[in-house]
């Protein structure tokens, strides 16, 4: 008989592709991680891409938040926001402009139709005050 001295911690992760059985659900604590709001996402970007200046951080997160209000095939997630922040850093970007957003939209969106939908909205989204 083999017995653990300390119980292991178990995380089951699911992105709702498969339906999970009631028996499994009953035995687990349930945690749904939603897409973050502006404030939390700024904190996450600050932790994951600390080199990004505060002003750029605020405006890039605000842009992603605006993108998430659209009806897209795949909304950008936190990992895409962090990837975008790192991409902008790599390109030595100090502030967002329409041209630049258009050129880097493929970091944020993974479907051509989503990119087209967002492209049409770039001027509007950039005109919004960050954090609003």
């Amino acid at each position, binding site marked *: *008989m*083999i*017995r*653990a*001295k*300390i*119980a*292991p*911690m*178990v*995380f*089951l*992760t*699911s*992105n*709702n592709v*498969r339906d*999970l059985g009631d028996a*499994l*659900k009953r*035995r*687990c*604590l*349930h*945690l*749904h*991680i*939603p*897409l*973050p709001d502006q404030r*939390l996402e700024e*904190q*996450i970007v600050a*932790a*994951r891409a600390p080199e990004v200046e505060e002003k750029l951080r605020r405006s890039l997160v605000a842009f992603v938040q605006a993108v998430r209000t659209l009806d897209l095939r795949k*909304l*950008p*997630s*936190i*990992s*895409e926001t962090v990837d975008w922040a790192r991409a902008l850093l790599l390109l030595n970007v100090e502030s967002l402009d329409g041209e630049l957003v258009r050129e880097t939209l493929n970091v944020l969106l993974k479907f051509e139709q989503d990119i087209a939908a967002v492209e049409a909205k770039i001027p509007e989204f950039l005109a919004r005050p960050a954090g609003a």
Partner: protein
Amino acid sequence: MSASLEAGSPLASVETIIEGLAGVGYIASRRIATAVYMSAHLKKPILVEGTAGVGKTELALSTAALLELPLIRLQCYEGLDESKALYEWKYGKQLLYTQILKDHMGASLAGAPDLETAMEQLRGAGDLFFSETFLEAMRRSRRSCWRHCQPTRFRSPRSA
């Protein structure tokens, strides 16, 4: 990974979990930290749901980093059942071991005069697939931890 819940442990309170996870780069909402706290103290698994890229796997990785414990990850897919997950762990390696075992057995059993003696020798050779090598959780945990467990019915080929 396994967790210690003593005072001073990163799991001592919801607040220490939020702080600790931030320290390893994971910004956890109160709800997330509370789930981790309850999971550790109630010894229940957490079922984490959410869209891809929201930080589900990262939560497990970060908790492991916070507790300085190894993470054993089992990637699930359609058609994976418990017999595959539990008994076919490192299946490729198991096949190789089988091959090596076969070669060695052939040599060491060659001297046996009859089938019965060969079977007896085989029984004495230990059971490789129930050895430490294929028990991932034990292999990865600190040796002292598992050597203290009672080894009834558990026989390592080296101690046999």
